[in-house]
């Protein structure tokens, strides 16, 4: 990667939960104010805002950056709002990062906010010709977890994944969520509790699919040269990438009703693409990563992403989990935040939150869930319709 080096100097997070009495502006302002305080930087020093589009917020949500900026005081800086489904935050971060790499500006704010509608997320248009999302809802009744269950059952058939393997993911992540003040769910679950929880779409049970939550997270980035003015622990961005799907990917992607039968590309090819780009650009490989936040939308994702991003060969993720390799203290700490399992999805915010978690790990600020001697971390997203983001960070 040529261009200037960039560091994250401030992180801020509104805790995840359900906040029906609050607006997206309330949550976003809270996260930004915390990030500014964390970086010990004045608002007027921010030179660009890259903001995740809040799709459920109408005109205001689509111009979330402008709405949030007006609260702190408008300064005429470039504000760009981006949407890439679950990789929205990763896209905002990449844009902020590239704005600094290019030399156009020195200090950037990346922000993502979401207040999810109640229950299942659903279609946002009514035109089936141009939005096939309408088709999957109207003609088949396919909420997102059905997609995950279909892929999960294929995995069970191919590699012998068991119900216990799936439940084990929740048991482990619940232990971390219980130690994270920003998590929505803080109860520690036993294997039996998970295995007797309600079936949502078999083989996936209630505690094995993530909820939809409200939350906000903000990051302040600046050139590595200037970072020391603000913090004694700048965290360097080694790569910030976005991936899209590859023709021939056999994954039945959310919103699609069809997929190729013959695999000519990897499963979850968008995440394969983004992680491979990040490894290439940073010169850092999966073997160097100490802490990984992956998108555990379901127990299936936890297992599959370990393989998609190259942390183990195909079919080995269950063994890695069972042998404790993915625990804090194991070969690589996976989702020490408690993951989506403990937070729930907040579409526009979650990728920024994952990066904020990794930053706190690399700074050594995570208390009882701290990964000892964590030097290199990675945040990986998933995204509807074939989009994904990867961020690799160095202490």
């Amino acid at each position, binding site marked *: 990667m040529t261009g200037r080096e960039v560091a994250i100097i401030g992180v801020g997070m509104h805790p995840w939960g359900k906040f029906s009495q609050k607006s997206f502006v309330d949550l976003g302002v809270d996260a930004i104010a915390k990030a500014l305080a964390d970086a010990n930087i004045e608002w007027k020093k921010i030179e660009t805002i890259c903001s995740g589009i809040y799709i459920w917020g109408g005109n205001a949500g689509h111009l979330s950056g402008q709405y949030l900026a007006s609260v702190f005081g408008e300064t005429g800086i470039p504000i760009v709002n981006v949407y890439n489904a679950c990789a929205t935050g990763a896209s905002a971060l990449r844009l902020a990062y590239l704005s600094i790499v290019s030399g156009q500006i020195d200090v950037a704010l990346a922000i993502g906010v979401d207040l999810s509608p109640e*229950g*299942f997320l*659903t*279609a946002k248009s*009514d035109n*089936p*010709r141009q939005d*096939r999302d*309408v*088709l*999957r*809802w*109207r*003609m*088949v*009744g*396919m*909420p997102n977890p*059905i997609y995950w*269950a*279909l*892929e999960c*059952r*294929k995995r069970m*058939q191919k590699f012998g994944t068991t119900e216990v393997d799936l439940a084990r993911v929740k048991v482990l992540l619940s232990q971390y969520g219980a130690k994270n003040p920003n998590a929505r769910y803080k109860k520690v679950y036993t294997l039996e509790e998970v295995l007797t929880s*309600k*079936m*949502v*779409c*078999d*083989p*996936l049970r209630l505690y094995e699919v993530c909820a939809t939550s409200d939350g906000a997270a903000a990051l302040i980035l600046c050139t590595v040269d200037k970072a020391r003015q603000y913090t004694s622990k700048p965290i360097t961005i080694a790569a910030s990438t976005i991936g899209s799907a590859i*023709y*021939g990917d*056999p994954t*039945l992607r959310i919103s699609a*009703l*069809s*997929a*190729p*039968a*013959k695999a000519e590309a990897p499963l979850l090819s968008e995440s394969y693409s983004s992680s491979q780009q990040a490894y290439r650009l940073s010169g850092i490989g999966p073997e160097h990563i100490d802490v990984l936040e992956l998108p555990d939308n379901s127990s299936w994702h936890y297992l599959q992403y370990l393989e998609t991003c190259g942390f183990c060969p195909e079919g080995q993720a269950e063994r890695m989990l069972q042998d404790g390799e993915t625990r804090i203290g194991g070969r690589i700490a996976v989702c020490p935040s408690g993951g989506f399992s403990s937070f729930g999805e907040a579409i526009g915010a979650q990728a920024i939150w994952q990066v904020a978690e990794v930053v706190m790990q690399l700074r050594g600020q995570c208390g009882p869930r701290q990964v000892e001697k964590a030097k290199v971390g990675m945040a990986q997203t998933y995204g509807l319709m074939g989009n994904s983001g990867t961020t690799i960070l160095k202490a």
Partner: protein
Amino acid sequence: MEENRKGKKKVPALPDLFTWGEDGVHLMSSHCGSCGTYFFPMYHEQHKPGCSRQGIEKVLLSKEGKLASYTTQYYMPPPPFKTDREITPYIVGLVEFPEGIQIAGIVVECKSDQLKIGMVMKTTTFTLYHDQEGEEMVTWAFQPAKVSESWNDPSGGRG
């Protein structure tokens, strides 16, 4: 097939997705003569990179395919999914057609413990709801191609 017992018509809930005739129900696809890809829905083109996109033809997929995966959904999804009776739990299956495309759809006429990945499924229809004139608004669906006597209607005959 086109008229039910009360003499009311069956109508696809949305057009250009599937059709039926004497020889059964077929999903509607289109096939690119250049890159060989089949699309579903037929109007959503998804070519191989670099394809000239020449020679796209509408085709009907084979009636039968193999079950690639399945799940039972226990909760009723929100609108715009609409049925005029309780259908949960219902099965959604993914069927791999000989043309080289997997397609998702509701599975009828069997229980989930009777499903096995690799078994032969045939395309059929499933009534979602009745419109104001009493016409059946149907979607495409799949059912095991060889029905044994032990198979029951998952909707308990309410369908």
